[in-house]
């Protein structure tokens, strides 16, 4: 077995445990340890990605228990690239927290590492109940991170977030229980096989369980009408946490892609295409609703949160189109939007501090120290987020639009995405002119921003620029990953054969 597969889980888990033990030590020690663990995670994720880039599906049987009985970790192209996106994002967020954003409590870095543990576990696991457990791990860590620093708005948003996710967890368990009761297994590859041989009489319960799972994943992915928790939670938490949460909606999108391509894909027998009537219309609705939120936002952080809703909708539109090209376009867009949204959250915080008492409210404010530099950074990030050329958002959206051309939904996809893109550009341009050009002489500016603070958002934009320069190879990789998803036989065979091989040994 290749132990590289479990490295992205062990690194943050061990770092988190070590950080608990070191809770009394000086902040720089904890930051250094956390940062080193995150950098090591980037290395491990890169190694894993190169290992699986030839199309091999790595299966890691925990405790060497054979596959359908024991729990497996599975690394294919999609899982590896999700781990890498998480690690790169985390490295940039660690850069921000090392500059003092973690000082409001002792356990920030612990929670941060455990969040990474949960995220990587959710991407790598090949077992449905284990997916639930890793969802809980990442949610528990996210509750702590969300509330970090306290305050009225944060507590109120946190209460909604926690209660909604607890109900989501309960629904997840109902779905898992019903699937187990009908199919007698929880291994996703094994589930896929047994679903194909399902008796028609048992179909109803399995369909109900599959749709319940869809509700849970839609809640995580912020698909309308289950997106209502997101703007409050993301808009009121601290900037590094909001930036890290840019990957959280993608966990839901990933779970939808993984579970429904594997278990309810086109070749999966009687329950095929279970969520097809729902996913695409709801995704387009999400884009539209999110855009109205972007237009109506009163604060830049809130606007960034609504842009996360829009990006979640755009992403699920691509996944909802369902064929290989659309999924590949979605994967490229997923990487782009994670980095771009994180950069916008970080920049909103820097601007908020520089604007003193008006903070990031979109009203006339004081003349900013280093105003031109900040405005330049805002222009770059806004270009990336809104999907204008020459940055990566444009390529991502263009690929999605192109992949929709053959679909019967083409007019809707083109109409909604193009109109909302235009409205998004207008909203961001209006915010920019409010923030930088409308001067209220009575307002007093805050402390001049430390230029080092701009490093993390600009690095994130730089990743986006690298995604434009290497768009060709990256898109080829996305296409290969999408092919693995559209034809899940290799995944199923790898998992079940790994089990068979150990059993006969």
């Amino acid at each position: 077995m290749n132990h590289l597969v479990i490295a992205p889980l062990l690194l943050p888990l061990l770092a988190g445990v070590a950080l608990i033990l070191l809770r009394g030590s000086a902040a720089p020690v904890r930051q250094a340890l956390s940062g080193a663990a995150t950098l090591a995670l980037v290395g491990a994720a890169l190694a894993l990605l190169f290992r699986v880039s030839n199309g091999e599906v790595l299966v890691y049987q925990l405790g060497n228990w054979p596959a359908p009985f024991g729990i497996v970790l599975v690394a294919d192209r999609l899982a590896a690239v999700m781990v890498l996106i998480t690690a790169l994002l985390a490295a940039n967020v660690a850069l921000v927290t090392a500059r003092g954003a973690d000082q409001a409590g002792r356990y920030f870095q612990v929670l941060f590492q455990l969040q990474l543990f949960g995220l990587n576990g959710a991407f790598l696991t090949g077992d449905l109940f284990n997916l639930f457990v890793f969802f809980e791990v990442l949610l528990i860590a996210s509750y702590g991170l969300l509330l970090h620093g306290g305050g009225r708005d944060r507590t109120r948003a946190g209460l909604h977030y926690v209660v909604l996710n607890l109900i989501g967890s309960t629904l997840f368990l109902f779905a898992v229980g019903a699937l187990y009761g009908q199919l007698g297994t929880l291994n996703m590859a094994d589930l896929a096989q047994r679903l194909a041989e399902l008796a028609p009489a048992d179909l109803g319960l399995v369909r109900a369980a599959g749709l319940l799972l869809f509700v849970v994943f839609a809640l995580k992915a912020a698909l309308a009408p289950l997106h209502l928790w997101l703007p409050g939670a993301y808009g009121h938490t601290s900037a590094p946490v909001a930036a890290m949460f840019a990957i959280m909606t993608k966990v839901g999108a990933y779970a939808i892609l993984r579970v429904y391509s594997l278990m309810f894909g086109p070749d999966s027998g009687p329950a095929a295409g279970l969520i097809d009537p729902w996913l695409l219309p709801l995704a387009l609705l999400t884009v539209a609703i999110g855009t109205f939120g972007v237009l109506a936002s009163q604060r830049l952080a809130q606007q960034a949160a609504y842009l996360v809703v829009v990006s979640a909708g755009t992403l699920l539109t691509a996944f909802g189109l369902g064929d290989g090209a659309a999924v590949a376009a979605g994967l490229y867009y997923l990487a782009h939007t994670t980095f771009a949204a994180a950069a916008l959250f970080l920049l909103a915080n820097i601007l908020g501090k520089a604007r003193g008492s008006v903070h990031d409210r979109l009203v006339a404010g004081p003349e900013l120290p280093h105003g031109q530099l900040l405005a330049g950074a805002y222009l770059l990030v806004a270009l990336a987020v809104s999907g204008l050329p020459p940055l990566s958002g444009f390529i991502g959206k263009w690929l999605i639009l192109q992949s929709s051309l053959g679909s019967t939904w083409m007019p809707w996809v083109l109409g909604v995405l193009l109109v909302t893109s235009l409205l998004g550009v207008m909203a961001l341009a209006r915010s920019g002119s409010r923030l930088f050009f409308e001067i209220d002489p009575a307002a007093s500016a805050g402390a001049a921003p430390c230029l080092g603070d701009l490093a993390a958002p600009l690095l994130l934009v730089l990743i986006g620029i690298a995604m434009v320069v290497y768009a060709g190879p990256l898109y080829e990789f996305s296409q290969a990953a999408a092919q693995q998803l559209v034809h899940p036989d290799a995944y199923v065979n790898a998992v079940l054969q790994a089990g068979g091989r150990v059993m006969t040994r």
Partner: protein
Amino acid sequence: MEALISIVVGILTACGVYLSLRGRTFPVVLGLTLLSYAVNLFLFVMGRLTIGAPPIIRDGAGDYADPLPQALVLTAIVISFGMTAFVVILALRARAELGNDHVDGEESPR
């Protein structure tokens, strides 16, 4: 027996849903607790109801109880117990910081 358990799960779920839609944090917490009880029972019976059979397969043993739901429900109980503790603390903190126990942090106008 199956019918009785189904009715119990149904009643617990209905009460849980009703309570978690209330406007104050205490009923909401109670509702979440009832929901988690319901799902624990549901998971438990998913391996079918078996009486007086060991959860281990041996050679020659005809009847056995499915051990997996028991392991699953143990995990689910631990997680829901921890989350209930967390949400109780969060509700108390919200009460202290917002000055009331309404889930939206402000009394609705009458």
